[in-house]
């Protein structure tokens, strides 16, 4: 890891953000989270009048549907914001024409992406807090908070999300598209990762897809840090799974990105 590059990246991105903060985009993301929560609230209170399915509590590890759904939507917001930003970095550089000059410099890609990730995490944290405050009005309650589980879950999640962003970034660079690939991935995450309902309701095949996206397990960990419902053994077991999945993503993502950079620069000539 090259700290100089890391610092420079954070500094540069911070400046960009400060000068032209994508307010619309941030508001859009918070609104998305708000609508998700609001939809869940309407379903719970008005449509089904708080009558949950009998197996919900067992599968979810809590019988508090609203808190379950809100935490899901907060993590979803977090994933969307960080992933999107890190993945879009290179393609943005490509579109703005800075990619070539960037590639000329012999720097370490890892530091560049990690720098972006750190900055984005800090930025998103603020937005997530705003969304969480909104969540409280809709009934977000913490039942059994466990600090070490929370910290472990967050760190592991960031690692996993980072890997995911790299892969998404590769797809974007390869397809030269952000709109279709990002929205499709996010719609898929929303479906298979257990954001507002336990993934066990899904057919087997979709559950399997959910298992290979680190968001699913990260979400289980984070929820257990808030609501309990997961033994320490189970927690560690799932934690290791997230770590392994994240590692696979990161270590395929980085070399793949490098490969794609070359292809992209070649394509640029043509």
């Amino acid at each position: 890891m090259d700290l100089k590059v890391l610092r420079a990246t954070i500094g540069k991105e911070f400046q960009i953000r400060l000068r032209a903060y994508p307010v619309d985009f941030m508001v859009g993301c918070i609104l998305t989270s708000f609508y998700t929560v609001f939809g869940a609230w309407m379903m719970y209170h008005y449509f089904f009048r708080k009558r949950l399915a009998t197996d919900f509590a067992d599968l979810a590890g809590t019988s508090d549907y609203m808190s379950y759904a809100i935490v899901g939507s907060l993590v979803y917001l977090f994933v969307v914001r960080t992933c999107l930003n890190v993945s879009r970095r290179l393609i943005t550089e490509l579109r703005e024409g800075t990619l070539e000059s960037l590639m000329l410099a012999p720097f370490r890609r890892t530091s560049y992406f990690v720098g972006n990730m750190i900055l984005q995490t800090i930025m998103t944290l603020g937005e997530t807090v705003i969304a969480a405050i909104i969540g409280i009005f809709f009934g977000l309650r913490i039942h059994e908070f466990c600090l070490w589980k929370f910290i472990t879950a967050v760190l592991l999640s960031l690692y996993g999300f980072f890997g995911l962003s790299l892969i998404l970034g590769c797809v974007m660079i390869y397809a030269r598209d952000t709109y279709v690939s990002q929205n499709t991935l996010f719609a898929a995450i929303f479906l298979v990762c257990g954001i507002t309902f336990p993934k066990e309701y899904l057919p087997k095949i979709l559950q399997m897809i959910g298992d290979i996206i680190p968001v699913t397990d990260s979400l289980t960990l984070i929820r257990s840090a808030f609501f309990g419902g997961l033994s320490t053994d189970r927690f560690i077991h799932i934690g290791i799974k997230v770590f392994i999945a994240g590692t696979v993503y990161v270590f395929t993502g980085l070399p793949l990105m490098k490969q794609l950079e070359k292809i992209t620069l070649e394509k640029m000539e043509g």
Partner: protein
Amino acid sequence: MKNFIKVLIAECHKQHRNYFNNMLIYVSLFLWPLLSFMASYYSYKAFDVEGSIVSYISGGNMPVFLLIGYMGMSFFRSVVQSAWHFSQERQGGTLEYIYLSPASRIAVIFGNALSSVFEGSVAMVVFGMLLIFYNKAALNINLFGLMAVIPIFLCASLCWGAFMNACFLYSRDSDFLFTVLEEPMEIFAGVKIPVNIFPQWARLISCIFPLTYALEALRQVTLNAAGIGDMKKVFIISIIIILVLFSATLITIYVVERHMRKTGNFILF
């Protein structure tokens, strides 16, 4: 009038040729609504569906209820998308040429929306087939009612699209408008939750979206075998909405052109 129709057809054709062979159309018309449909469907599993208070919803026809919702949503989305494409013409510079010509702006805008109504219809047919194939038994269709609802549905979406087009002309932050309009529509228009169980204040918001009425009418005739007689109220409201949207579009176009001539706002470069 002749020129109006000429421009309408030309715009419709251009828009169709320019965007229909784009992958985005297929993804946004089919894949995204399908994914959202599935997400909503499975999220219902967390609840005791038989406990719902809406007359025509039970465990059996829940998927049909949702599928109709997402079908309508996808239709309306496609017209919004066309508006979004239209706003991109500003970046492409072609909008300036349209404004340079004496062509009727209303014809351009309606032509644009019309092309996506056509695209939406393709999606609608596909969803319809899926529906019949998936769960024929849950359907309870009044054919005459359906024949009356479809044109109203098409008109409502056309006017909605035209109105969006006019709005997108005005706003530079078209992406923002897209997020602000798209998701509330999914919730408030009753795509996944029937509007009649909404609290009063939420129903007020629902009123804004023509999709609300379009969906209600569509569901009534397909799930509840409602005839034309039962639907009078919905029809009248839909026609009013269509008229309101139409006039709002005319006003917006007028205001936009005046504003643009004052500020030269269409120059982004």
